[in-house]
């Protein structure tokens, strides 16, 4: 049986803020705000035709990425799915450069070559932004392998949606990570839907966290993803297990996306009702955390307004930066195909054009 499955985490009242300082708590709130405002701006830009392709927003899920990433060290690694604008921002990418990537501009974090789904930052050990459901889970295991290979004490955080738990790569990764004791935290953001499919319609498991039971050595825990403190708390445990014991953990973090699967999709309709979305919005992770901080005297209403305004300003500035960034130069067309020499000219066959 899998090691130590814990029940849903609830942070006790006595230590509801996990010993974090006021400044740290405000920082978490700020990050959630920035993530939210950035996505709202991205939606606007998308509607204006400034962003192309798919664009998957994170609105409603902010507590997950903020709680989780805040528990990482700078030299830890992380890797995410296509729904990862917030992850990139929270990990420290410049909002202007993230927005520029969405706009497909030269100053984008991936030079405009990756787009919304493929954000990368080598200096932040941020390994993308991946578009094939489940396929970055083995990559995360490989990062964990490299950490152990070098006898490092880093950790790799791998985030993904709950729909990935039914694909083969999930199983193969979990088995290897558990068998070889790889320091990976597999964090499933269970927002209940993969596109228009409710997870229980296609999953033979009442609880997602149950997926861990078959891997000896895989720790697991189910977490309230609308509570940034709960996520942070569980993540600290998982990180400690990874760092100290070199063992992986599977976190099922329950959350909800308030918007459609991607901007082009409706937020409700065929697969979920407006009422459901509205009811879920009552648990807004930003509003509830703000309320808790205010109630506890950590934050004043004015401070919150400042944080919020700053977040709005950041998003606006990011969009402006992106707008002013040039398109990637066509001369770099072949620059990122091969790192080493390509004898005979990669463009030879295209050259007569």
């Amino acid at each position, binding site marked *: 049986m899998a090691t130590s499955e814990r029940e849903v985490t609830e942070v006790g009242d006595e230590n509801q803020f996990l010993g974090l300082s006021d400044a740290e708590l405000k920082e978490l709130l700020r990050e959630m705000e920035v993530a939210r405002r950035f996505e709202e701006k991205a939606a606007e830009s998308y509607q204006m035709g400034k962003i192309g*392709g798919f664009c998957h927003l994170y609105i409603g899920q902010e507590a997950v990425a903020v709680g989780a990433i805040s528990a990482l060290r700078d030299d830890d690694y992380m890797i995410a799915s296509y729904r990862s604008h917030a992850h990139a921002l929270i990990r420290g990418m410049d909002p202007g450069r993230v927005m520029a990537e969405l706009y*497909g501009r030269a100053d984008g974090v*991936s030079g405009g070559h990756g787009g919304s789904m493929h954000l990368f930052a080598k200096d932040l050990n941020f390994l993308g932004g991946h*578009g094939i459901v489940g396929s970055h889970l083995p990559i995360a295991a490989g990062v964990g392998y490299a950490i152990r290979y070098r006898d490092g004490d880093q950790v790799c955080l791998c985030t993904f949606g709950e729909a990935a738990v039914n694909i083969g790569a999930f199983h193969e990764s979990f088995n290897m990570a558990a068998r070889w004791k790889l320091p990976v935290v597999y964090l499933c953001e269970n927002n209940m839907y993969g596109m*228009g499919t409710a997870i229980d319609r*296609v999953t033979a498991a009442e609880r997602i966290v149950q997926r861990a039971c078959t891997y000896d050595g895989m720790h697991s825990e189910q977490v309230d993803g609308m509570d940034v403190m709960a996520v942070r708390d569980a993540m600290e445990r998982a990180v400690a297990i990874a760092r100290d014991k070199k063992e992986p953990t599977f976190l099922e973090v329950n959350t909800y996306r308030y918007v459609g699967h991607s901007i082009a999709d409706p937020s409700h309709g065929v697969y979920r009702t407006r009422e459901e979305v509205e009811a879920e919005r009552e648990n807004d992770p930003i509003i509830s955390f703000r309320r808790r901080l205010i109630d506890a005297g950590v934050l004043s209403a004015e401070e919150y307004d400042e944080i919020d305004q700053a977040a709005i300003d950041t998003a606006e500035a990011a969009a402006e930066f992106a707008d002013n960034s040039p*398109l990637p130069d*066509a001369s770099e067309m072949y620059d990122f195909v091969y790192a080493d020499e390509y004898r005979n000219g990669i463009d030879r*066959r295209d050259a007569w054009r």
Partner: protein
Amino acid sequence: MAVITYREALNQALREEMDRDDRVFLIGEEVGVYDGAYKVSKGLLEDFGEWRVRDTPIAEHGFSGMGVGAAMVGLRPVVEIMTWNFAHLAFDQIVNHAAKLYEMSGGQFNIPIVFRGPGGAALQLAAQHSQAPEQWYANVPGLKVCSPATPADAKGLLKSAIRDNDPVIFVEGERLYNMKGEVPDGDHVTPIGVADVARAGDDVTIVTYSKMVHTSISAAETLAVEDGIEVEVIDLRTIRPLDVDTVLDSVRKTNRVVVVEEATPFAAVGAQVVDDIQREAFDYLDAPIARVSGLDVPMPYARNLEKLVFPQPEFVVDAVRHVCYRNHSVVE
């Protein structure tokens, strides 16, 4: 003759074949409740129920394999691959199983299955979501490969594919779904393996398929007006089996050829077309055959770069001028 979209044409083909033959069923991600990621299966769940329109987990290998299994015991599955990029995960089921079971069983188990979905680039979907798959599958004996360019052929070929007793790889185009065109009424069937002369002309032959048929026709119109060159556009429609004879008939008339496809060039379908032509019509060629393909790069996201990678009518115009030894805008 009704004017409908490519999407509606596919929907009609599915519906008519499911009505006609209760062994036909549809399986894939989002095909039911959501009506398909691209709404191709609209309304089918409601009319046929969940055993015939099955929403799956994200498990391309698994549900493709289920299709193969169901086909082995007499059903006729249509497996929707949300986009062909995800079929990389099912490559083993398609290539090692669907394509080979008839041979390995000495002719006991044929596999009447269709794998269908959009292939190639849409708009700014970046490298992982913009790949053309047909060249890989067309290399594999045991598979047939179709890639219709018009609503009429989308309907007619999908019906043929479903009725076919072999595995068919059916590559649609996201950029084509909204395209409108006339579709003959009634039980409209387009045979597998027969190319179409999409535009007649005497001066140059363009061999192409799918989206690039439209790009080529648009180039042909420019060339007719600006250069007085009359281009014959051959829409292959089926890539495997390739209708070499229709291609050769045209080449023997025009003596000049351009092959146009959106895939990356190395060992793509276009290379095979070149090989067939040079072998069977060598003495008829007045110039080397030119190819216009997607540039040899993973598709970049940025709009301006994508436009350079994805073949545009201007590129085709240049290539035609090139094989005619006319001045053209690009220096070799």
